[in-house]
């Protein structure tokens, strides 16, 4: 199981700009649910609160009001039931790829032989078995993010939370990682909540798309594309893909011109 619910979540930040205090309402009464095994994308213009929502779900930032639950249990701080994939992978530069994956597992209390075997298994899953001894700076951007995904998956979380995981990659690498993520999802059936600013990516990968603007959920859109979406180049040609894409593009366009 792995069901994530945002129940009336609000979050306010206080910033000091030139000596003046500014209150930023990052999230305002946000409610939606990610069902077990589902992939949901959070999309919206920058500053719409999508990353904040993910951080609240991870437990890195507390909500001011409302709550996030995972399988009915309220999130209070970080937990092993959620695995986080960071925007720039954020691998520990002094550890090898293997050791980076092992780090998360060790924090879960795993030791000895199972530790190595599990880490190996997940590096295999992301196709990096041959590069296990390389340090992050010896890996390409795409490989780094693969390690980041392996590190999060290895602790076997109920939910995978991804913060613009492919945003910093070149187009080609991004496409191959998107396909790989779908493959991993097909195999592991993990619940995935991911933040993106890439409209194509949201439609290609997600089952549903939560469109956010100004800290609110503007709309939740179902993606009418069947799984498995084995060949993403074919998916891109489907009318359903383009219709959905256009629909959301209009939504984002409307909000950005109104304000």
């Amino acid at each position, binding site marked *: 199981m792995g069901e994530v619910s945002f129940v009336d979540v609000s979050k306010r930040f206080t910033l000091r700009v030139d000596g003046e205090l500014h209150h930023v309402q990052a999230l305002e009464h946000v409610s939606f649910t990610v069902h077990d095994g589902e992939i949901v994308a959070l999309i919206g213009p920058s500053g719409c609160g999508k990353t904040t929502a993910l951080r609240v779900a*991870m437990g890195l930032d507390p909500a001011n009001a409302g709550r996030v639950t995972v399988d009915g249990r309220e999130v209070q701080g*970080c937990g092993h039931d959620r695995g986080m994939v*960071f925007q720039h992978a*954020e691998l*520990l530069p*002094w550890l090898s790829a293997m050791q980076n994956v092992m*780090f998360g597992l060790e924090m879960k209390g795993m030791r000895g032989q199972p530790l190595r075997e599990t880490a190996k298994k997940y590096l295999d899953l992301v196709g990096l078995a041959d590069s296990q001894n390389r340090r992050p*700076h010896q890996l390409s951007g795409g490989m780094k993010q693969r390690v980041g995904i392996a590190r999060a998956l290895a602790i076997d979380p109920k939910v995978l939370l991804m913060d613009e995981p492919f945003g910093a990659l070149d187009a080609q690498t991004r496409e191959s990682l998107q396909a790989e993520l779908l493959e991993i999802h097909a195999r592991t059936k993990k619940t995935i909540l991911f933040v993106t600013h890439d409209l194509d990516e949201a439609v290609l990968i997600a089952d549903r798309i939560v469109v956010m603007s100004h800290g609110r959920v503007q709309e939740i859109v179902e993606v009418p594309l069947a799984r498995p979406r084995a060949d993403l180049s074919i998916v891109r040609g489907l009318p359903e893909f383009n219709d959905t894409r256009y629909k959301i593009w209009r939504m984002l366009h409307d909000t950005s011109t109104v304000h």
Partner: protein
Amino acid sequence: MVDIADTQNKSAEPEVAERRPLPRWTITLLSVAGMLALWEIFGRHVNPVFGSYPSAIVVAFWELLRSGQLGSALSESLQPFVVGYGLAIVIGIPVGLVVGRFRTAEAAFGIFITAGYAMPLVALVPLLILWLGLGFKVKVAVVFLMSLFPICINTWLGVTAVPKTLIEVGKSFVAPNFVILRRIILPATLPYIMAGIRLAVGRAVVAMVIAEFFTTISGLGAVIINSANNFDTATMFVPIIILMLMAVGLNTLIGVVEHKVAPWQAEIAGRDRE
């Protein structure tokens, strides 16, 4: 035609290899040799009370070494140096880590570290002598106090420079605070710590000599003072040069240690292939 092209290619290859720059140690060696030569040439024209030159210093060095004076002076000096400098490392790093990591500790103790760095220690030596006597202990204290603060401050600065996201990686995997400190903050801070340890070498050497001047005249400091009082300038330069060489040697050693404990740093900076 094919044959000719082939031989041309072959002869071109070693030429490319020969254009590699001089190894850096060769450049250092040449620079030192040039400096010594200049000193030798001009030093000979100076009254031996006012100055000296390398060959006279080498002779004085040999004299000191043969009489056994140098060996015993060196060991007398090194003992408080090693203990004081070692204590500064062992205490300075954890203090810097804690002050850098915890806001409350920073607010409570940060000011003492910043102020301590600028403490005019020479002025305090008489007071230290009153507390600790004239012997080994006061020398350790002087070396310790001089080298503690650069190590502490660098560690502290290093901790505050650790990217927040790396700490969040630890948090998101539910790492307890001390695990974050030991497994994320400490390795991320290592380059800063090593820089602090390097900076402290110079101060520790100076501190050692100060301590020997002010307390029981002993060790290398005593050799300096006694030969200066006898207007034996060449002999006076022997311990001075030995101290400087010691600092250079320690610096190199620390560089090697740094490469061992934090190899990724040199690799990221692209300095590992030099």
